[in-house]
């Protein structure tokens, strides 16, 4: 029986609420020591996984978020059978536990900012042009003209980047105050100045939102987007894993321990 995974939760208790996930199947938690993995059963046919399933997946994770700390699974993670699932849990237990501890009582908020890139560029170009002394002189040949164009474009880009960094720094100063961790992506496109994820303590969520509105009102020409609270998609960190190697290592240790016991028993 293939199991579809939604996330890891910080409890070995069963889910009280009746939750339905992909294909309308019931969602339940399989405990492993003091944590659990939330699954639903998936029949043999896995091709049917559609993008509509993304919303169903997300809906389940959101419900879990209300009662547990959740490490959300990437979409379309399946494990073949309970035994394999428990082996996986054994392999990742430390990682999961560490993350659950770190992310307890925290939610992720997404902040995106669109800035008036065209106007910024225009201002830069105007300023640079006015600074430039019109270079009269001998006829410009192709190579020199090429370099001049490249140089201008380089200068404009540099200024553009600098301006972007300034704005982002100012905004992050406010938002970062209430965040425990953050991930910032700057100038993903020319217009998308900032694409950020902030990890915020639940108790500080209000302060964080207030900071967001404050920044929004301080930049009338900019456009803002706030999303959340999300489970900490952007802040889950797993160490590199090779479950086969882990199992091998576990066997190795067992072997060594047995040998040591034998040696001990046989020592004079």
């Amino acid at each position: 029986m293939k199991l579809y995974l939604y996330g890891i939760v910080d409890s070995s208790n069963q889910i009280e609420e009746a939750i339905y996930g992909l294909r309308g199947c019931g969602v339940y938690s399989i405990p492993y020591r003091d944590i659990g993995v939330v699954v639903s059963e998936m029949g043999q046919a896995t091709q049917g996984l559609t993008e509509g399933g993304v919303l169903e997946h997300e809906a389940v994770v959101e419900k879990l978020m209300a009662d547990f700390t959740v490490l959300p699974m990437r979409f379309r993670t399946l494990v073949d059978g309970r035994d394999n699932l428990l082996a996986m849990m054994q392999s990742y237990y430390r990682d999961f536990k560490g993350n659950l501890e770190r992310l307890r009582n925290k939610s992720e908020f997404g902040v995106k900012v669109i800035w008036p890139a065209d106007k910024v560029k225009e201002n830069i170009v105007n300023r640079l042009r006015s600074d430039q002394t019109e270079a009269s002189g001998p006829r410009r040949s192709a190579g020199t003209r090429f370099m001049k164009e490249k140089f201008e474009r380089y200068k404009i880009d540099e200024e553009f980047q600098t301006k972007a960094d300034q704005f982002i720094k100012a905004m992050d100063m406010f938002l970062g105050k209430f965040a425990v961790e953050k991930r910032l992506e700057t100038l993903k496109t020319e217009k998308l100045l900032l694409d950020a994820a902030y990890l915020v303590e639940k108790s500080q969520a209000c302060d964080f939102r207030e900071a967001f509105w404050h920044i929004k009102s301080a930049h009338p020409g900019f456009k803002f987007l706030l999303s959340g609270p999300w489970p900490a998609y952007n802040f889950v960190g797993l160490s590199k894993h090779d479950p086969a190697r882990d199992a091998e290592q576990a066997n190795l240790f067992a072997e060594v321990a047995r040998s040591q016991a034998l040696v001990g028993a046989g020592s004079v």
Partner: protein
Amino acid sequence: MIAHAIVETDSPDEFAEQIQKSQDAHPARIDANPENVEKGLAKLVLTLIELIRQLLEKQAIRRVEAGSLSEEEVERVGETLMKLENKMAQLKELLGLKDEDLNLNLGPLGDLM
């Protein structure tokens, strides 16, 4: 059950456009199609050439900025870079590759270029 994720913005269309754009701009996911293996090699080679070309260009611009190149040198460097850029454009067109295709995702280090 449907997700109720809360997204607040007064410019949903613009953000949708920019998010879509940023996703498109990222290098395509691993293409395991064996037919495209050759194209994959060409892509890799061109990506490296493009990287070097960009580095050379930046170097040259910095030297122009610092004023450490004579007029004649600027002309010569400019001509060379121009030819290189044109050559790359030709190769890209020949192989049906776009600028977004010539990039490498280095995982946690981000994109190469």
